[in-house]
């Protein structure tokens, strides 16, 4: 796979590429669903960043008098069993979800890229062992793997992120490795080698940038799925623990207890999760269309 030149790609598609705003406008027109996804993601990130400005209530303060208060009035999305403002918890929960999705994706990709790059570039016994290791990790479904990881690491935010990141490693490593393998034989790599560049330098400077496109495609798809895995873990009692306002736990615990007594406790975190995952999926689709022409839709 060759380097994907973004603007050339756009130009080929008949766009009138004129700088940054131009390509943005083109993106919106060419990929309306992707644009919607981007807007949702932006809203999500901004909510996480400016949580303290957006919410007037503290997400941790309990108040017996408003236990299970209905939505409306001062507490626009109501209050949970402990009398904590649901809106505040969802807004602050965006931070947790952002940390989980970005944290797990970045961590998984970092490890996966390192392993895949080394494996593809050095080959030999290292590659052999790593490939078997990846085989082993892929012989369990992702949720089962995450479940065992989460159980062995114990409940905490960091551990949940690690537990979700590790099962992602083999997928990333595989893609990077196969790309590296084909790139290794490319003329420009041969040329770099001929002028005496060190292997590590070649790997980082020449090979890595050219594997970014499939990596980005995989990573954007992973963002949403990390949030879903966290909520499933929470449902099984293993996600991000209290006192962090995790959407997954808010949803799964309310769903287990108050699904009918206080439906707003279930509806709002559910909408938050679904909307963000939906947004990342829409965006991911568009990104894939742009970056991975082979699978163009």
């Amino acid at each position: 796979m060759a380097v994907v030149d973004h603007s050339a790609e756009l130009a080929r598609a008949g766009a009138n590429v004129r700088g940054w705003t131009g390509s943005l406008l083109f993106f919106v027109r060419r990929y309306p669903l992707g644009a919607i996804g981007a807007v949702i993601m932006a809203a999500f990130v901004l909510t996480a960043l400016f949580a303290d400005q957006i919410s007037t209530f503290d997400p941790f303060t309990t108040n017996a008098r408003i236990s299970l208060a209905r939505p409306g009035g001062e507490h626009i999305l109501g209050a949970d069993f402990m009398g904590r403002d649901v809106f505040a918890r969802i807004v602050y929960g965006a931070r947790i979800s952002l940390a989980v999705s970005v944290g797990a994706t970045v961590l998984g990709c970092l490890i996966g890229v390192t392993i895949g790059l080394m494996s593809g570039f050095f080959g030999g016994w290292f590659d052999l062992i790593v490939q078997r290791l990846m085989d082993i990790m892929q012989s369990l479904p992702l949720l089962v793997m995450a479940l065992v990881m989460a159980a062995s690491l114990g409940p905490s935010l960091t551990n949940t992120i690690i537990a979700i990141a590790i099962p992602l490693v083999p997928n990333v490593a595989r893609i990077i490795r196969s790309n590296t393998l084909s790139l290794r034989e490319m003329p420009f790599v041969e040329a770099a080698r001929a002028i005496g560049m060190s292997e590590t330098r070649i790997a980082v400077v020449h090979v890595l940038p050219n594997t970014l496109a499939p990596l980005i495609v995989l990573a954007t798809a992973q963002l949403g799925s990390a949030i879903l895995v966290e909520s499933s873990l929470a449902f099984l009692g293993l996600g991000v623990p209290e006192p962090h306002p995790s959407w997954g736990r808010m949803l799964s615990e309310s769903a287990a207890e108050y699904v009918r007594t206080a439906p707003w406790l279930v509806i709002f975190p559910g909408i938050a999760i679904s909307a963000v995952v939906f947004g990342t999926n829409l965006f991911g689709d568009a990104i894939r269309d742009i970056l991975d022409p082979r699978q163009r839709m």
Partner: protein
Amino acid sequence: MAAYIVRRLLLMLVTLIGMSILIFVMLRLVPGNITDIIFDSAGFVNPAQKKKIERQLGLDQPIAVQYVTWIGGLMRGDLGYAYVSEKPAIEEILPRIPVTAKLALLALIFSIIIGVPLGVVSAVRQNTTLDYVLRVLSLSGLSLPSFWLGLLILMAFVQFWGWIPIYRSDTGSIWEEIALLSIPAAAVGFRSSALVMRLTRSSMLEVLRQDYIRTARAKGASDTSVNYDHALRNAVLPVVTIIGIEAAFLIGGLIVTETVFNVPGVARFLVEAIRWRDYPIVQNLVMFIAIIVVVVNFLVDLMYVVLDPRIKYEE
């Protein structure tokens, strides 16, 4: 071909041995063991008695010895005794497999029946309103937490029909059981069908752009004939692959759904066993799942090789 198969089988063996070591070590890294669990329900801990139980279960031995004991037993077909129920592990695992298998199969059928036709329609009508609607729908299928979907379905049944579709062991016939299981299967299959649909669509699109399709069109074949006779047949291969892999991975989705619909299958049992630190159950069950995944992957690859002569089987 024979060499390829032997090579693959050897690699499978290596993978499974590696898996056994990985799960064995990881389980022992999980804080607390069965003796902690046993004392938990008594609300106190008696250290002397705890040591005694650990000795009885062989948990005081070096980890390598424990591993060899397990694998040795496995070779002889002896899975050991479940810690919690104190029954042979095989008696705990085996009866729970059929119900999960039925559920997975139904979910798979569901995802194919829904996913493939919608994918084809979406591809043929690319960039029409219908295509957009179907794509958004499939994405929403991938965006809902599955336990949420399951609970919403349960609530709807209770609300509108005053009846709850949770598992019953005393259904009269196999058809009644299938009818009952089809509801949780639909909940799991919804997500898979979205995957299948998206894959069918992109696979179809790629095939539709191929030269031979253009040729067929140029030769005057009707649209319907081109779309369904020529294109679909060729698009089906990658779809089969993903369905095969998805089948093994349905287990992940089943964990949550079995909990919500109270289906006494292996997936939920695995979670319970992890919670109870019931090593013999977890180890053997995880190996069982790994074997299924590895074998399904192998079969899918093999099928690929057989179906598509363009693929060479040297790796």
